[in-house]
C-alpha cells in the first residue's frame, strides 16, 4: 500500500486545535497601554480609563518555562556528539561530525559546530544535556509519537490533553488568557488542558488587530466593533458572548500589540523566541510558552538540513537572551525537546531514519549544568536498530513541573517519575520597592528612544518638558515612528533644515546619526525606500535605533537621565547627586515633579537630616540650598504666606529648583 509521508507541519496540525480561550471578560487588570487617537496625547475612553491598572506580574519566586519543540525528530547524536565513540563514526559514515569540527564540551562529547552560543552558555554552567530520553515501545509514526510526547500521561489511552495544558488547568486565578501562550495560529495538544488551554498568538503583529497607532478611520472601526457589545443584545447568551467577543479581541490585541514591538529578528525561530522574551518582559503573568520549530525530519540529505536547523537554534537562543530582561534571567527556563531521535546508522539517502531515544537541552541560569541520564550504547540497539532509552521522557516533565513550576507532577502526569535534578528552583528577582520591573524598564527605554530621536533630528538633547511630553504620548499608545514623524514635520526641523528632498534627508541622517558621509550604496538604498513611500519617521527610527547609534549615545542618555528636575530635587533637598536606583525609581514612577518633590519633603532622609522644620525654617533652607544665600525679608515673608494659604513645601522647593539660576548653577539640563 502506498502512503505519502506527512510533512512535519501536517503532523503538528494533527495535534493542534484552537479552543475557547477567553470565555469570560478579559480582566481589565491586563492593560498596559491605552489606545489613542493617532494625534498622540491620549484621551482614554471612559470604559478603559476606569479600569486600567498595572498588570499582575509573575510572583517573585515563580518560574517561567519556554518549551521549544523541534518537530520531526531532531538528531541528538549529531547535536551533542559522542566524539570519542568509534561506533558513531562507523555507523554514521559521511554523516559523522569529527572532533576537530565540533565544539568540545567534555572529554567525550562535543556540540554541533553551529552551536556557538550554546557552547558559551555551557561554559557558564547554564546548560544541562539529558541523554537517552524516550519511552519504551515507541510507535515510530510521527502522528503517534508527537501526540504521546505532548500528552505526557502515564496511561496509553487516547491523548486528549497535554501535560502543560493540564498544568494550566490547575493554576489559580481563573481562566486567564495569559497563563500559557503558544506562538502560532493553533494550539498544540501540548498546551490544551481538560478545561483550559493556552492562548494562541501569531508570531507577527499583523496576525492580530492592530489597534495602537492606526489611522483614526480604522481606530473608529475597532471602536465600533467594541461598541457592538456595549448593550445586551436581548437575544440570549450566545448573541451576548459574540457581541462581547469584539471587545475582548480588541482588548487582548491592545495588550499584546505593543509587546510585538518594532524590528523583530528575521528567521522563524529567532522571531518566535524574541517574541517570547518580549512577552516575559511584559510581565503579564505568563507561566509557560510554547514554540514549535522544524522541520527536523532528515530522512535524506541530512547535513544541509540539520546544519541549518542547528544554526537557527543557536541564533534563536541568542536572540532570546538578548531580549530577555535581566530580572527574569533567574526565573526563566528554556527546554529544547524533540519527540524522538534518529537511528544510529545512516541510511542510503545520506540521512537517518526515525529513532527512539534522543537528547534534550535545558538552558538557564538556574540549570545545574552537566550531563544527565545515560547516553545509550550505540552498539547494543533494539531490534529495529534504535537506541534504547535510558530516561523516561515523563521524568523530564516531572522534574520541570515539580521543581521549576511548583506543580504536582504525579497528579498532572498520572504517575510518579524520577526527579532528574537538572534545574534548581527559580530565584526571586530583585525589584525596586515592589514596582513592576518591566514597566520601569520600559519607561527608561522610552526615554532613551526619544533622547536618541532628538539627538538624531536636532543634534541636541531634549529639555525635560519635551521629553516628558513624548514619553507620555508613548506610554499611551503612540508609536515611536509616529513620534519621529511628528518631529520630522516640526517647526524646529523645518527651520533648521529647510524643506529637504528625500536624498538630502538621507544625507542628513548619515551626517547626524552616523557622523559620516553616506556611502553611495546606502544613500541610493534609503532614498529609494523613501521614494517608494516609506515615511521619514520610519526611516529615522531605523537609524536612531541602530546598534551603532545606541552605543554612541549611551552617555547622552545618561546625561539626560541624570539631569533634569529630579536630579535637581536631589541637589536642592539633599545637596547630593541622585543614586541610580533612586533616580530610576522616581523617573519611572509616573508621578508629577510636584508629587515627587512633596515626597522628598516628607521623606525620612529629609527628616533625619533637618529634623522638624517650621515653615519659616523651611524657606530659609530652600534659599540656602538652592540660591546659596539667606532669604531676603520680602521673599521670605512671601513664601511663608503662600504656605499658609495651602501651597505645599514640595511646590515651593520645585519653584526654586526649576529656576534658571539653579539650572545654570548645577549645570544640569533644563
Amino acid at each position, binding site marked *: *500500500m502506498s502512503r505519502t509521508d506527512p510533512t512535519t507541519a501536517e503532523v503538528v496540525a494533527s495535534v493542534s486545535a484552537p479552543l475557547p480561550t*477567553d470565555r469570560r471578560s478579559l480582566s481589565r487588570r491586563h492593560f498596559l497601554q491605552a489606545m489613542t487617537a493617532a494625534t498622540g496625547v491620549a484621551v482614554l475612553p471612559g470604559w478603559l480609563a476606569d479600569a486600567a491598572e498595572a498588570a499582575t506580574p509573575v510572583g517573585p519566586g515563580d518560574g517561567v518555562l519556554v518549551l521549544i519543540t523541534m518537530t520531526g525528530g531532531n538528531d541528538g547524536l549529531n547535536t551533542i556528539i559522542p566524539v570519542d565513540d568509534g561506533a558513531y563514526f562507523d555507523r554514521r559514515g559521511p554523516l559523522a561530525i569529527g572532533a576537530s569540527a565540533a565544539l568540545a564540551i567534555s572529554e567525550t562529547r562535543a556540540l554541533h559546530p553551529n552551536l556557538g552560543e550554546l557552547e558559551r552558555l555551557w561554559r557558564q554552567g547554564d546548560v544541562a544535556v539529558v541523554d537517552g530520553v524516550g519511552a519504551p515501545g515507541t510507535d515510530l509514526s510521527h502522528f503517534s509519537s508527537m501526540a504521546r510526547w505532548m500528552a505526557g500521561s502515564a496511561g496509553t489511552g487516547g491523548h486528549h490533553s497535554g501535560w502543560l495544558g493540564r498544568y494550566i488547568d490547575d493554576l489559580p486565578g481563573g481562566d486567564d488568557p495569559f497563563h500559557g501562550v503558544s506562538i502560532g*495560529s493553533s494550539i498544540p495538544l501540548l498546551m490544551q488542558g481538560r478545561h483550559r488551554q493556552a492562548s494562541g498568538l501569531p508570531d507577527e503583529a499583523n496576525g492580530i488587530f492592530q489597534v495602537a497607532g492606526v489611522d483614526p478611520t480604522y481606530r473608529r*472601526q475597532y471602536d465600533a466593533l467594541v461598541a457592538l457589545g456595549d448593550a445586551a443584545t436581548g*437575544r*440570549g447568551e*450566545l448573541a451576548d458572548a*459574540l457581541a462581547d*467577543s469584539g471587545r475582548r479581541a480588541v482588548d487582548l490585541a491592545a495588550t499584546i500589540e505593543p509587546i510585538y514591538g518594532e524590528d523583530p529578528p528575521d528567521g522563524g525561530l529567532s522571531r518566535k523566541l524574541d517574541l517570547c522574551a518580549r512577552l516575559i518582559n511584559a510581565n503579564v503573568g505568563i507561566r509557560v510558552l510554547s514554540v514549535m520549530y522544524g522541520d527536523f525530519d532528515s530522512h535524506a540529505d541530512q547535513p544541509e538540513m540539520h546544519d541549518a536547523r542547528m544554526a537557527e537554534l543557536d541564533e534563536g537562543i541568542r536572540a532570546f537572551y538578548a531580549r530577555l530582561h535581566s530580572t527574569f534571567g533567574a526565573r526563566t527556563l528554556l527546554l529544547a525537546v524533540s519527540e524522538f531521535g534518529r537511528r544510529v546508522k545512516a541510511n542510503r539517502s545520506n540521512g537517518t531514519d526515525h529513532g527512539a531515544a534522543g537528547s534534550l537541552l535545558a538552558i538557564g541560569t538556574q540549570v545545574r549544568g552537566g550531563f544527565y541520564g545515560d547516553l545509550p550504547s550505540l552498539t547494543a540497539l533494539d531490534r529495529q536498530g534504535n537506541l534504547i532509552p535510558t530516561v523516561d521522557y515523563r521524568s523530564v516533565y516531572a522534574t520541570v513541573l515539580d521543581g521549576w513550576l511548583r506543580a504536582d507532577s504525579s497528579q498532572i502526569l498520572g504517575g510518579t517519575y524520577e526527579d532528574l535534578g537538572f534545574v534548581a528552583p527559580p530565584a526571586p528577582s530583585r525589584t525596586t520597592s515592589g514596582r513592576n520591573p518591566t514597566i520601569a524598564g520600559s519607561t527608561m527605554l522610552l526615554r532613551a528612544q526619544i533622547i536618541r530621536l532628538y539627538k538624531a533630528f536636532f543634534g541636541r538633547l531634549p529639555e525635560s518638558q519635551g521629553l516628558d511630553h513624548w514619553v507620555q504620548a508613548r506610554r499611551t499608545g503612540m508609536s515611536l515612528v509616529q513620534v519621529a514623524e511628528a518631529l520630522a514635520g516640526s517647526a524646529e526641523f523645518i527651520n533648521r533644515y529647510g524643506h529637504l528632498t528625500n536624498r538630502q534627508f538621507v544625507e542628513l541622517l548619515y551626517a547626524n546619526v552616523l557622523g559620516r558621509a553616506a556611502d553611495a550604496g546606502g544613500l541610493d538604498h534609503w532614498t529609494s525606500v523613501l521614494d517608494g513611500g516609506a515615511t521619514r519617521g520610519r526611516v529615522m527610527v531605523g537609524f536612531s535605533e541602530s546598534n551603532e547609534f545606541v552605543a554612541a549615545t549611551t552617555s547622552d542618555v545618561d546625561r539626560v537621565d541624570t539631569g533634569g528636575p529630579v536630579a535637581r530635587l536631589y541637589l536642592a533637598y539633599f545637596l547630593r547627586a541622585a543614586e541610580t536606583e533612586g533616580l530610576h525609581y522616581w523617573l519611572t514612577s509616573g508621578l508629577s515633579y510636584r508629587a515627587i518633590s512633596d515626597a522628598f519633603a516628607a521623606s525620612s532622609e529629609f527628616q533625619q537630616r533637618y529634623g522638624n522644620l517650621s515653615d519659616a525654617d523651611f524657606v530659609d533652607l530652600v534659599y540656602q540650598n538652592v540660591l546659596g544665600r539667606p532669604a531676603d525679608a520680602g521673599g521670605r515673608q512671601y513664601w511663608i504666606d503662600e504656605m499658609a494659604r495651602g501651597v505645599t513645601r514640595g511646590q515651593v522647593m520645585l519653584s526654586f529648583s526649576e529656576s534658571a539660576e539653579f539650572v545654570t548653577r548645577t549645570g544640569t539640563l533644563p
Partner: protein
Amino acid sequence: MPADIDALTVYDWPDLVEQVLDTSAATPPSVGVPNLDEGRGFYRNFVDMTWFWLDRCRTTHAPLVEKMVLFWHGHLCTSMAKVFNRQWVFDQNQLFRTHGLGNYEELVQRVSVGPAMLAYLDNDRNVAGSPNENFARELMELFTLGVGHYTETDVTESARAWTGHILNDAGAYTFTPEAHDWDDKMFFGDTRNWDGPMIIDHIINGPKKNTVARFIASKLWSFLAYPDPEPGVIDTVAAAFSSSDMDIRQLIRAILLHPQFRSDRAKNGLIRSPIEYVVAAMRISGLPCDVAHPEWTLRPMGQQPFYPPNVSGWKQNHYWVNSSALWAKSKFAGNIRWRLYERDELADSSSKPAAQAVDDALALFGIVNPTASTRNALIDYVENERRNTSWAERAGLLLLPLLSPEFQLA
C-alpha cells in the same frame, strides 16, 4: 439576499421544508471535480479540494446536500493529518455528497470500507492474529451508539469481525480472506461467524436500533437547531428516524417540522461554525473561493476542512468564540469588504440619513432582524464618521455587519 427572502415568505413552513428537502436541483458531484494529482503538491491539492467544496456550498441550489456533507465530515471523521492520500479523503467527501441523505446504514457501510476510514482508524492493519480495535471501538462509541451502550467484549469481537477488511498494495479496499478471523464471535450476546459489514447492519437495524436513532437524531438536532436538545424532542424525531428505517432525509424532515425547531431557543442557540460563516459570507457577497480565499483563515478560525482535530470532530458554540478566531474572521471579512467596496456596494450611503444607511447595509448582508444594540452601534459609527468628514463610512458599513453577532449566529 433580501429579494430571495421576500420570495420565500409566500410559502408556509411545511412547504418551505419540502423545498429544502427537495435536493433534485443539486449540482452533480462530477461537476468541477479537482485534479488531485500528487505531483501538484500537497498544499495545492488541499486548496483545490477546499475550493471545490466551498464553491459548491456557495452556488448550490440544494444547500441541504452540502450542509449534510459538513455534518458527516464532523461525524464520520477522517483527517488529512493522518491520511495523506488526498484522493481517498476526497472520495470520502463525495460519499457524503452522494449518500448523505439516504439510508444511514448504507452510508456507514460505504464509508467504513473506504480507504480513508480504513487508514484513519487503522482497520487496514486489522488482521487475524493481530487485531486492531481502533475502528471497531469508534464505530460504536462515536458513529452509532455512544458510550455505555456496548461492552468491551463487543469491541474486541467486532474487531475480530473486521479483520481482513484492508487495503491492497495499490491502495484499494480488498477483503483478504487469509487475513480474516473466521472463528465464531459473540457480539451483542449473539454468537455466530460475524463479519464486519454484518456488524454494522446489526448495530443499526438490530436490537439497538432505537439507541442508534436517538444518538444520531440528537447529534443532528444539535447541528441544525441547538445543542443539548430536550429528551422529549429527541423522542419524537428519533421515532421518525427509526420508523423510516433510518432514512436520513426523513429524520431531517422530522427535525425541521418539529415546533421546537422554530423556537426562540433555536433561533438564537447556534453559532455558525467557521465553514458555515465563510460560506454565508461568500454566498451573500457572491465572491468565489479564489477571491475570498477562505483557506487562508479557516485554520486560525478553528475549522480547517479535512482536518478535524480528532476522531470526535469539532465541538460547537463557545468552542468557536475566542480572540484568535475573531482576528482571523476579521481578516477574512476585511478582504470581502474591499471586494464589495470596489464593486461600489452601498454607493449612495453617505447621502442617506444614518439610520437608513445602516438599514441598507444590514439588509445587504441579509440581516433582516437586527438587534437594537447592533443597529445603534452602527448608527453611532456612521454619525461619528460624518462628524469626522471621513471617507470611510462605506468601508466600515461593508465590514461591521460581517462581524456582528447576528451574522455569526446560525
